């Protein structure tokens, strides 16, 4: 059996995939647009518009500054914990910029930069990590689900939300982010399957950063690539260079377009790397070499795009200065915000457990009220 050639475009008409299932397989090497030095390469993808590229660059710089600020705040004890996205900005920004206002984002704990890119207030993004409350923003305001900690569970929420959009006749696509480790959970499997069977408008973006905390990919899967899982659901899959913001952006944009036009879900695996430890509480030196980190620093997503834009004369001094100013402005707002102490009302413990507080919760609230009064005396 010789497999038919894969068509040039990811916009895969369904009939084709029926006749030639191998068309659902990813390419053997990741799709990309820029090499590590920011030079354009031959690709089946077409380069995004210049303003989009500049926007991606700007948002990556701002996102990284946010990330660095958050990391710094953990060292000062201002944040309980922070899982950094450093190194993964091409995925977070490239993907989110591909969303339309009516689309939804289903992020994980790792994806604070994606949230900021989506426009979530940076202080609201950090509410969870500062320990004030489980969530700081209104999901409906930004169309961003709560950052999800139980791994892979958000994949199903995304499918459900997208399917509901189909049922209601709304043009909404759900983009769900997950890590390489999360692909091992049963929920990922169920979500890919439901989405494929229902042809739901969902885009699954696996940020394969090589590790699940300390566990390297080789202990996570024996697959040729995580994208190779797609065909087992009848879902087209794409393998992309996750440090190439332009490529991630184009690939996600195509997938969003497929989803929005009724062609169903796409599985995208983006190869990237987390530069920091899993969180500030982790010590990555226990399980990986400095040399490995150094090699990935060479493939930095921001540098890469910066070189390209600079070489093409698209990134002048003024633009750089404006972006730096924006990033620093954000960082100082975050610093100021996080240095101000926030009081959280203990009574909020009892709110929103049910739509209406139960009698039992009212009694428990009274108990706490009495205790606090006593203490105050």
């Amino acid at each position, binding site marked *: 059996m010789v497999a038919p050639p894969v068509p040039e475009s990811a916009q895969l008409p369904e009939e084709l995939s029926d006749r030639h299932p191998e068309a659902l397989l990813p390419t053997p090497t990741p799709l990309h647009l820029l090499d590590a030095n920011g030079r354009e390469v031959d690709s089946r993808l077409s380069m995004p518009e210049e303003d989009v590229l500049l926007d991606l660059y700007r948002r990556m710089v701002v996102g990284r500054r946010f990330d660095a600020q958050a990391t710094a705040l953990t060292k000062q004890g201002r944040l309980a914990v922070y899982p950094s996205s450093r190194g993964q900005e091409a995925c977070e920004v490239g993907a989110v910029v591909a969303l339309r206002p009516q689309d939804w984002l289903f992020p994980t704990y790792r994806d604070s930069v994606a949230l900021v890119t989506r426009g979530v207030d940076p202080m609201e993004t950090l509410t969870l990590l500062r320990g004030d409350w489980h969530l700081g923003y209104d999901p409906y305001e930004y169309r961003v689900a709560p950052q999800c900690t139980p791994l892979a569970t958000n994949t199903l*929420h995304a499918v*459900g939300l997208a*399917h*509901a959009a189909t049922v*209601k006749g709304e043009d909404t696509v759900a983009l769900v982010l997950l890590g390489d480790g999360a692909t091992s959970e*049963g*929920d990922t499997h*169920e979500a890919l399957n439901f989405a494929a069977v229902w042809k739901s408008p969902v885009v699954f973006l696996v940020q394969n950063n090589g590790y699940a905390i300390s566990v390297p990919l080789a202990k996570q899967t024996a697959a040729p690539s995580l994208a190779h899982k797609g065909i087992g659901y009848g879902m087209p899959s794409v393998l992309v260079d996750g440090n190439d913001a332009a490529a991630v952006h184009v690939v996600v944009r195509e997938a969003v377009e497929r989803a929005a036009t009724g062609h169903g879900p796409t599985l995208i695996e983006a190869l990237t790397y987390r530069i920091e430890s899993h969180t500030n509480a982790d010590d990555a030196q226990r399980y990986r070499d400095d040399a490995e980190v150094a090699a990935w620093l060479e493939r930095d997503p921001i540098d890469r795009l910066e070189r390209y834009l600079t070489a093409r004369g698209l990134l002048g001094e003024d633009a750089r200065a404006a972006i730096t100013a924006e990033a620093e402005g954000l960082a100082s707002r975050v610093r100021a915000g996080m240095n101000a102490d926030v009081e959280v009302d203990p009574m909020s413990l009892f709110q929103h*457990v049910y739509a209406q507080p139960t*009698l039992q919760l009212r009694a428990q609230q009274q108990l706490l009220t009495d205790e606090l009064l006593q203490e105050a005396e």
Partner: protein
Amino acid sequence: MTATLGAPPAAAPVTMASALNRALADALEADDRVLVFGEDVGTLGGVFRITDGLAARFGDRRVFDTPLAESGIVGTAIGMAMNGLLPVVEMQFDAFAYPAFEQVTSHLAKMRNRTRGAVGLPVVIRVPYGGGIGGVEHHCDSSEAYYTHTSGLRVVAPGTPGDAYDLLRAAIDCPDPVIFLEPKRRYWSKETTTLGAAPLPIDRAAVRRAGSDVTLIAYGGMLATALEAAEAAVEEGWDVEVVDLRTLAPFDDDTVAASVRRTGRAVVVHEAQRFGGYGAEVAARLTEQCFHHLAAPVLRVTGFDIPYPAPKLEEHHLPSVDRILDAVARLQWDDQVEPPRKGY
């Protein structure tokens, strides 16, 4: 009032299965946002036929079969609820809801609180529960204790056809997630009633039989057994009150404690294993609230602390009329040591 205008529909005999079917149909009819899905609920109408005819009537956009994956069913229901729909999903048997446990405890129960009220999840999970039908292993679990211990969930267990209708309609209308436990053994039980004529609120217990000597507390599959025991107790000269909890969480303290204060004695009955069972909560909280009215400890009549038995032995495991009467008899009716308290 004339005979033709505004007259309530005549009461008719109805099984719990058809009452549930009617509740789903009426809810689908009343609100476009209601969806019914799960394993075999579409074409087949469910293995217990609770969804019989619904797919044909409302179309497969609103009533449909999913792939076979319970976490998937609950997880996607959560996403649908986030997007404004009202999913009513079926777990085929009690033990087959366990794969969805993480979605239920970590998301369904917590979402409203996590999001400070921004995201409510009005999802109903229908779970045929309990034994007494000669089912093989994994088909007869009673798992109410797992759910009632999970803050943020409402847990409901109707004991009669009329209540099955009312409570399912109320559960679907409820803005909170509801675990809706359907006693399999009562699916084919009949009641002559007018469905929906005078529904009691979802979070209220009901005194099903008034009595002055002892309160039997039951729900779901054990309600009928408790009522039977109450009748049988007449012969022994005991006047037994039966409270039907209807909703297990949140608990209707007022109704139940009032009964126990009146009678001074209480027995709680359930099929589930005893240790850490729902009856422990009932006994503990009633003791806290009624200690000085109690002539005896609140007793529990429950399944044994064993995996649900094979069909040939289930009769020995399940609370029977006799076992309930034995417990009632142990409530120190002629206590020589302790004088009866105030009021007795």
